[in-house]
């Protein structure tokens, strides 16, 4: 098995464990504005996905991600199956050449596009798109423009997702089950944005383990190094 695939297997297991430990919190968030099934469905689906990728015989990264996505798609059901699982399957070919900073950016962008397209959602609809969009934009810029080390870029992306999760609280839902509540959805943190943040935090932890390094301490809104240099010149 390639090192990249090892990392994917470890990441899916870490996500499954995290979602399991946040199960009741996610369900509480969902019962305020939805149908109270997010925690249970996601925990079951990701646990199955962790087993499925661990059982693969010498996979590459693309196959491991695709398998995780297919399992989440069929085990989670509801809207979360297509959104979390279907989007992983759809974006997995971006990792054909293994996981590099460049393929990771392409994967993240394709994943975000698919989530937006499938859910017909944009920033400001009080959905997972509110967490994913700042994360993917920050990751892309950190890698492509600022040339940051991958782990630092991912840490900034996670910090950006956290801001996105907070942004879901004071806005009104216009997609998903919560949109049926109209103005009553204001003041509630979106469960999908929240679980998306947990997934990203576990990807960061796993990546740090792979690099045998600590999770970098970053601020999503801090100025980036090349920009600061450009300003001085």
């Amino acid at each position, binding site marked *: 098995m390639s090192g990249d695939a090892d990392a994917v297997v470890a990441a899916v297991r870490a996500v499954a464990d995290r979602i399991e430990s946040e199960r009741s919190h996610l369900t509480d968030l969902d019962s305020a504005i939805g149908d109270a099934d997010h925690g249970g469905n996601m925990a079951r689906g990701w646990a199955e996905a962790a087993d499925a990728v661990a059982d693969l015989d010498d996979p590459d990264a693309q196959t491991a991600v695709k398998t995780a996505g297919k399992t989440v798609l069929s085990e989670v059901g509801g*809207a979360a*199956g*297509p959104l979390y699982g*279907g989007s992983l399957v759809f974006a997995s070919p971006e990792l054909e050449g293994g996981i590099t900073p460049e393929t990771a950016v392409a994967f993240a962008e394709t994943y975000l596009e698919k989530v937006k397209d499938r859910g017909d959602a944009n920033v400001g609809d009080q959905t997972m798109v509110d967490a994913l969009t700042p994360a993917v934009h920050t990751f892309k810029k950190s890698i492509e423009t600022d040339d940051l080390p991958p782990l630092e870029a991912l840490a900034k992306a996670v910090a950006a997702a956290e801001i996105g999760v907070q942004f879901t609280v004071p806005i009104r839902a216009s997609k998903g089950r919560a949109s049926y509540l109209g103005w009553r959805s204001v003041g509630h943190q979106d469960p999908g944005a929240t679980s998306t943040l947990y997934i990203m935090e576990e990807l960061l932890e796993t990546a740090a383990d792979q690099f045998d390094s600590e999770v970098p301490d970053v601020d999503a809104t801090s100025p980036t190094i090349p920009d600061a240099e450009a300003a001085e010149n």
Partner: protein
Amino acid sequence: MVGLVVVSHSAKAAEGIVEVAAEMGGDTAIEAAGGDDGEIGTDADRISDGLAAADDGDGVVVLVDLGSAVMNAEVAIEMHDGQAIIADAPVLEGAVNAAVAATDPKASLDSVVEQAEAAADISKV
């Protein structure tokens, strides 16, 4: 012959709609794909099975209820080895219209979708 799949969050609702449509639809293949593992919800795998069962090569029109029904139907269609289209129609009235339209000897996938979607304009009172 064009087939139909009825997707609802409720297995009972999907089966009931199939029952109503089948009475009008002669030999049309109509499959119910409702619920998610016995609970309220929709399930891409279940819809995939419905598509495979309803498709004799002439394609399938998919009727959906709310929210995730559309997403799971889209995923199932992407995985389906054949042609299938989601009708932008009320699920019960669309299913009845489509079931009747499919019995027309000249019916095509597009004509059945069109008839399903015409159900949106049905005035009831």
